[in-house]
């Protein structure tokens, strides 16, 4: 939708043929959805604007205004659950915090004694002096429009507060903790009568005013405020979603470990999701209370949190228009349809003289419907009414047939993206000194050392379970070594978290592939660039020229990297990676790592699962990378690949380094032969390679 257009490389530096290839692959995807959606959005908003004029029924406009409030809540929860994948079962707590924040500063609930302290505030029209028999008191009269952002900020603060302790928890535990917070907040509201007026609820909350005109109880102005709120929140959601921030959230949702390894600071981005989601609820709470002019603890209990969850599950988790639609449908069902249907059934009952038909009150069954929707959607349509990811049709046979074109002849030009990655300093690029890793009683690595000189390829080989992948994990910060040191380009990175290791210039792939399965090829590679981009929440929302330029350059950079693999990946930019072949997924993972412009690339069995031709192709591409100055550490079982690529080979067995040297030296080493083939084989000749 919005932001989709940025994907098109309008004036790419790519060769004309690649661009032509892109257009051939998916001409409709580039232009049409964007135009179509813009027309669609305009029509929807035009109808929404005209609705109170066309349909002059105050009760219905009021229901629609309420529905807008729930749609706003659904949008907020969608940021937390849909984008970042953090299941929050106590979301209504933030709704309550926003509501009571406005309620406390716009009602007669809090009335401290008057003193000179309040005079400047009186001058700012934030408070009024109210004469009382027992002496003058302060009456808060903070404007609704001012309180909207303030409530959002207060709720965001609580979002960070509640979010911080939950960051380490797994999905279901996180859900329970948020449920606990969701329970605590309304109880506190009930038991703190001096601020909230307890179970009776706040009364006489001031209605919003505009240029001296009070909204009062007429539904129409509230409807338009709600519509404005929704418009803003949809814009915020979609701009965040298609930015660096949205990509980071979705990466965390898809695979936390891979997100960290690709340079995403998980703590920061999870808290950001909590804060922004809470801010949406805070602003909505203010709107809702101003509209109802009262707030009671019952308005924010667990069923409300569940209702919002039902709305986003129904509409489509992660889909902006989906959750709005889901919220609107369920609210309209509740306030119009079930009511009308009950009336019809009563009339029918009277007509055919059936007593029980006249008694039916379908509105009571709304929670039953919620439950059925949750179960049905989860069992039969988990992606919701409007799925967040569009299915892209598979390539046609002709497009697949055009596939064998490889990048090799044009490589020199295309590898320009790697021009500035070569490590220029003196001394070794990577130094691993006496690293020991222990899992409980098992020593996975015992005092392993190795050195990677600049512009070299080092292969790490060894039997299964010898500690090769653990070595990668220890070096990249996924596992904290018990002892030892890791230096990258002379900088100690031993205890750095994974995202900082990537920031320092070391990127990796995983043995068992850790892609972001539900994201597209392009999105996966763009996430690899995360650490090299700077767009923050503000930039993503305002889309200043600098942000747009950065985003366009990022996309171009990704296309150039994907071009390294010829036309293996380029025609599939918009394909979800889980739909790719295994070999292509391996390529995407390498491209993702390359996108971070590393000085050192760690490849964990890059050719696993590839046939001989594909292996040869990839080996050639790795060689190309090396020739451009990239240093590479490679775990590999195929010894011909090792021999053709590596300058140096390190052999691990049972967590210890047993040999090191050039491929020729290593394959004649007695110790290595014994590790691979057992004792008896070592008595024979050197038959490893």
């Amino acid at each position: 939708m919005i932001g989709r257009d940025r994907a098109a490389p309008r004036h790419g530096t790519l060769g004309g043929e690649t661009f032509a290839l892109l257009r051939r692959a998916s001409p409709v995807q580039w232009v049409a959805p964007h135009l179509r959606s813009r027309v669609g959005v305009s029509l929807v908003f035009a109808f929404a604007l005209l609705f109170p004029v066309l349909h002059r029924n105050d009760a219905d406009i009021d229901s629609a205004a309420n529905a807008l409030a729930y749609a706003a809540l659904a949008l907020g929860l969608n940021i937390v659950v849909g984008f970042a994948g953090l299941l929050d079962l106590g979301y209504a707590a933030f709704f309550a915090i926003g509501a009571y924040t406005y309620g406390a500063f716009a009602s007669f609930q809090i009335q401290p004694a008057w003193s000179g302290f309040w005079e400047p505030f009186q001058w700012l029209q934030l408070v009024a002096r109210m004469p009382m028999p027992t002496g003058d008191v302060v009456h808060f009269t903070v404007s609704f429009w001012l309180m909207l952002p303030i409530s959002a900020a207060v709720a965001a603060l609580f979002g960070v507060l509640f979010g911080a302790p939950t960051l380490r928890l797994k999905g279901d535990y996180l859900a329970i903790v948020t449920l606990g917070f969701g329970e605590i907040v309304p109880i506190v509201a009930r038991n703190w009568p001096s601020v909230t007026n307890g179970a009776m609820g706040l009364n006489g909350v001031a209605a919003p005013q505009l240029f001296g005109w009070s909204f009062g109880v007429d539904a129409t102005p509230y409807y338009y405020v709600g519509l404005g709120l929704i418009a803003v929140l949809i814009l915020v959601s979609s701009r965040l979603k298609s930015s660096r921030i949205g990509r980071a959230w979705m990466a965390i949702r898809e695979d936390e470990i891979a997100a960290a390894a690709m340079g995403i600071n998980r703590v920061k981005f999870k808290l950001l999701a909590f804060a922004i989601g809470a801010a949406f609820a805070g602003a909505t709470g203010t709107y809702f209370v101003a509209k109802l002019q009262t707030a009671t603890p019952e308005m924010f209990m667990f069923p409300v949190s569940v209702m919002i969850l039902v709305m986003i599950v129904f509409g489509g988790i992660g889909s902006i228009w989906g959750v709005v639609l889901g919220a609107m449908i369920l609210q309209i069902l509740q306030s119009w349809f079930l009511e009308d249907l009950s009336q019809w059934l009563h009339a029918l009952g009277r007509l055919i003289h059936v007593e029980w038909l006249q008694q039916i009150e379908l509105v009571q069954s709304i929670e039953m419907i919620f439950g059925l929707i949750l179960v049905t959607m989860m069992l039969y349509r988990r992606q919701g009414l409007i799925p967040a990811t569009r299915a892209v049709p598979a390539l046609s046979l002709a497009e697949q047939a055009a596939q064998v074109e490889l990048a090799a002849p044009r490589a020199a030009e295309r590898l320009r993206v790697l021009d500035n990655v070569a490590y220029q300093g003196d001394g070794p690029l990577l130094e691993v000194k006496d690293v020991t890793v222990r899992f409980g009683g098992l020593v996975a690595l015992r005092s392993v050392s190795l050195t990677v000189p600049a512009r070299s390829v080092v292969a790490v080989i060894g039997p299964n379970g010898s500690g090769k992948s653990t070595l990668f994990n220890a070096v990249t910060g996924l596992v904290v070594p018990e002892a030892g040191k890791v230096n990258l380009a002379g900088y100690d990175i031993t205890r750095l978290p994974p995202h900082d290791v990537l920031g320092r210039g070391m990127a990796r792939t995983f043995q068992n592939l850790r892609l972001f399965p539900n994201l597209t090829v392009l999105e996966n590679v763009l996430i690899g660039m995360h650490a090299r981009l700077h767009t923050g929440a503000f930039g993503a929302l305002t889309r200043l020229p600098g942000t747009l330029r950065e985003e366009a350059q990022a996309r171009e950079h990704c296309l150039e990297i994907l071009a390294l693999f010829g036309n293996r990946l380029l025609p599939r930019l918009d394909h979800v990676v889980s739909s790719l072949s295994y070999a292509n997924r391996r390529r995407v993972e390498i491209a993702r790592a390359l996108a971070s412009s590393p000085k050192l690339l760690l490849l964990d069995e890059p050719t696993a699962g590839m046939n001989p031709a594909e292996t040869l192709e990839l080996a050639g591409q790795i060689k190309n990378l090396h020739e451009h100055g990239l240093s590479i550490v490679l775990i590999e079982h195929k010894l011909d690949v090792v021999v053709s690529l590596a300058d140096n080979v390190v052999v691990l067995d049972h967590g210890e380094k047993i040999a090191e040297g050039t491929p020729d030296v290593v394959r004649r080493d007695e110790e290595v032969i014994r590790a691979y083939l057992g004792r008896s084989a070592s008595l024979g000749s050197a038959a490893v390679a």
Partner: protein
Amino acid sequence: MTTGALYLQQIINGLSLGAMYALLALGFTMVYGILELINFAHFSVFMVSSFIGMWALELLGLQGQGVILTGFALVGALVFGFVVTMLGAGMLGVAIERIALRPMRAARGTAAMITTIGVSYVLLNSILLGVGADSKNFPNPMPEMHWDIGGATLRLRELLIWCVSLVLMLGLHLFVNKTRLGKAMRATAQDAEAARMMGIDVDRVIVTAFFLGSALAGAAALIFGLYYNYTSFIIGYSAGLRAFTAAVLGGIGSVTGAMLGGIIIGLIEALGGQIVSVRWTDVIIFSILVLVLVFAPTGLLGRSTTQRS
């Protein structure tokens, strides 16, 4: 009542509540141990089975507190009540597993948990729409016998709760540790994939866990009714959350932990209400839930769950 007697009384109350929470917590912990699933449907299984228990006792002609039985008649009525309620609850649990959760087995992340919330809502509203919102008088045929202990009162119903809970928990302990199916259950909890490869019918183990867990919830529901003399469509939520807290506190996945956690939560509820204020009991319990999950997610007796990375 002296202060000492007051506290003694609260300890008696707390132990009774705790026994009930422990029975309910066992269902959470058994399902979590095997499926790593937080089963919100358990809340409503508890609530629905309290109605099953009520109808079972009413079938014997017991209405409210009007009919008092003694001797064999009382024992017979109670045994009948417990057997019917536990069987009904167990079958409800098995049905939920078959209809709503088995198709979700392969789903990633929190999808299965969201489904259980939906199931819980469906059950809750079935009772609300079918039976009504007002609370129902629960039949209780037990005579008002009580003993005076240091100023506190110990009633027959408390004695009954303790005995029934003790017998059921002992039975479960023996089942899990001494039978073939119990051993299969422990193996599946350790590693379902390996258990399957060793020829264990994992589906059967899961069904057993749901049956036993739900049957124990049924027993807890009957105890609830006999203790408070009422039931209603809303009893599942607060009792369920307390029991869940108990399971977490004891170490989710640990059977002994669930029993211990239940007793502790029961005592905290009774004594906390006495010492602080009943209004804040919920906040105390939810704070325990949050604090344990955040700072000691393995609880008192839990094994450390291996986080799949």
